[in-house]
């Protein structure tokens, strides 16, 4: 209720609190401080030189990009997508196909090279500059997103969820099974569970190629992606399109009656959300040096969705936090802290046998403690409180 109240007072902002920061401070100053900390952190030797840690932080940032992408589809436009892993797969395969030795037989085993330097020019396979690959990944995933979006246009609610889930599973299956179908002179389309590996490392103009053991440049590149995606996200949210998404989410019939083009708006949501997934997928493939079909499973879609919901549906900063929290939980808290607990207190108990349950329990706990997400979006929050007033403790709110 108090939130709804502050919402009402929001129009004249300077009215009530003396020390309220001006709008530019909120939008620029605080993000700038956070960004500054993120930039400075790796300069501390104990952090920057710890490659395993730097890599995990880079992975966490890549997850932030993914979660922000899914947030456009689920949070802004209200289309429940359970097959987000498909875009991860397309982004990763953009790297696997266009920046690795996978298609070793093209061009008489001489390879095709585009704006790459160093030793790479001598390798067989297709090798494009990483920036070009990023563009390819974005185009590929945007198209994929729209194609996957098409059959869901007439669907509502959870029917969308199952169709996107179906697409995610189909793409995952293709990634596993197409290792038997050969193209371009005898190379299989995907390498299945074998994995396409190694893939080219990021090689930016004017900079030294990124290396295996120094993860600082990788981290900064991920940070750059996050900033870029955040910027686009804010611009999108506050644009005409962003308002159209919210309008569709809140009440499709009314929105269409008011002249919001439903088809275009929904496809834009799928396309934009997918593009971020592709961007992040391509980056992850290069960082982790492999494109393996084992990565593209349903559980990954659920992980990204959990980041979005845990952070707060539709809330950009919330989703950022949700992604970071779940990354920490998965890649550090459980394997490095909880698993070591028994041996630290001198017990002979193998924690790894109950890790599943710990992970499940933590998800459960977080959701019960903060059902609206860690940092809920204002509009969602408003809707919540309204409901709480009118229908007190009855059923699930439905109608998202």
């Amino acid at each position, binding site marked *: 209720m108090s939130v709804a109240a502050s919402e009402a007072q929001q129009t004249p902002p300077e009215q009530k609190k003396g020390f309220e920061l001006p709008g530019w401070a909120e939008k620029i100053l605080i993000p700038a401080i956070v960004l500054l900390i993120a930039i400075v952190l790796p300069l501390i030797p104990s952090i920057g030189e710890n490659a395993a840690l730097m890599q995990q932080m880079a992975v966490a940032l890549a997850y932030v990009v993914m979660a922000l992408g899914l947030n456009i589809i*689920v949070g802004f436009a209200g289309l*429940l997508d359970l097959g987000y892993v498909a875009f991860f797969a397309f982004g990763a395969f953009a790297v696997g196909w266009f920046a690795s030795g996978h298609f070793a037989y093209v061009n008489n085993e001489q390879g095709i090279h585009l704006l790459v330097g160093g030793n790479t020019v001598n390798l067989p396979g297709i090798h494009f500059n990483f920036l070009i690959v990023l563009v390819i990944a974005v185009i590929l995933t945007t198209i994929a997103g729209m194609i996957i979006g098409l*059959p*869901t246009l*007439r*669907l*509502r*609610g*959870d*029917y969308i*969820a*199952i*169709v996107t*889930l*179906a*697409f995610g*599973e*189909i793409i995952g*299956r*293709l990634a*596993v*099974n197409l290792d038997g179908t050969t193209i371009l002179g005898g190379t299989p389309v995907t390498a299945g569970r074998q994995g396409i590996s190694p893939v080219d490392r990021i090689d930016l103009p004017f900079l030294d190629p990124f290396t295996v053991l120094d993860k600082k440049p990788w981290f900064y590149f991920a940070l750059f992606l996050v900033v870029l995606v955040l910027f686009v996200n804010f611009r999108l949210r506050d644009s005409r399109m962003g308002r159209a998404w919210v309008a569709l989410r809140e009440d499709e019939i009314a929105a269409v009656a008011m002249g919001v083009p439903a088809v275009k708006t929904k496809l834009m949501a799928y396309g934009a959300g997918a593009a971020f997934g592709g961007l992040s997928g391509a980056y992850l493939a290069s960082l982790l040096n492999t494109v393996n079909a084992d990565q593209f499973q*349903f559980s990954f879609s*659920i992980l990204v*969705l*959990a980041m979005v*919901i*845990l952070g707060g*549906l539709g809330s950009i900063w919330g989703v950022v936090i949700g992604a970071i929290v779940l990354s920490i939980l998965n890649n550090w808290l459980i394997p490095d802290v909880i698993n070591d607990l028994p041996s630290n207190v001198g017990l002979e108990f193998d924690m790894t*046998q*109950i*890790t*599943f*349950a710990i*992970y*499940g*329990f*933590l*998800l*459960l706990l977080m*959701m*019960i403690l903060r*059902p*609206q*997400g860690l940092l809920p979006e204002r509009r*969602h929050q408003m809707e*919540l409180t309204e*409901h*709480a007033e009118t*229908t007190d*403790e*009855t*059923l*699930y*709110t*439905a*109608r*998202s």
Partner: protein
Amino acid sequence: MEAASIPAGPPASQRVKQLIGTYGLTAVLLIMPVWFAIQDLTDEGNLVRLGENLVAGLSNGAIWALVAIGYTLVYGIVELINFAHGEIFMIGSFISASLIVTLGLTVDSAAVPVFFGLLAALLLAMIGSGTLNVLIERVAYRPLRSAPKLAPLITAVGMSFILQNVGLLWKGGNQQGVPDLLNAQNTLFTVFGVTIENADVLSVVVTIPLLIVMTSFINRSRLGKAMRATAQDPEAARLMGINVDTTISLTFLLGGMLAGAAGLIYAMYQTTIWFFQGFTGGLIAFTAAVMGGIGNLRGAVLGGLIIGFIQQMSDNRIGTEWTPAIVFGYLVLIMVFKPSGLLGEQTRDAG
């Protein structure tokens, strides 16, 4: 009613659309069976192979149908995709398998102890799974009733991880063989060259009475009426004096019991159980529920049977590694032609 001023018929494009709307779905559903029937007839001159697929498909599908009903019931009343439901089904299998082993029943046991043993296992699995489902609702979903719609989805996922871990600790990571009490793959009789095995009979014999009891309970009894009322409009139902909490618990109980029964049939039919079976089984059953029109009981059964049939055809002719992709491909096609599922009604959400 047809006033002269209204143009005679819909334009041609509209008519094509209508045609696709009416017959497109049927055509899609029939593509595979008809294609394979033609193939069989030209290659072998009879339909035995397709018949075998159909029998295996229906008996496998019956198991999915039982699980799918749980999804549909829960969805109909609280609009929640209960991701933990597959794990309830898995726990049902584990309970019955453990009981059978505890009772000391083996392949060589006589018919009478086997019958009563199975009956006991069925009851215990149903009670166990049902109770577990109710508990899950209390712990993981009820506190989130007033939360955003997607919040319980995550607790459901969390719950399913926990239950998987329980299964893992209980029976280990490998698939576990279960004593083949019924000699599942023994040919019982043949009809037109199609062999009917013990397992096929078991799955049909247990499933059909359960389905009849369930539908008549929901259609006839007071509690069933309360369930339907709550599904239609929880607010109005509450005003009419229906205890919504109890009704929801009851729904979870029924869904869990059916999943438990499915668990027993699965264990006896496949004679192998696995802590991860609930994940795949749940996904398939959920697909079945959606295919049939989520919220619709008959739809869930129909969806389960169709998926069972598709799976067997694909296993037999295309390759098991493609089966999940084909099932999901079918689902997408059905959704394109009939967005609310085969027997879909207007649920609150879709309306």
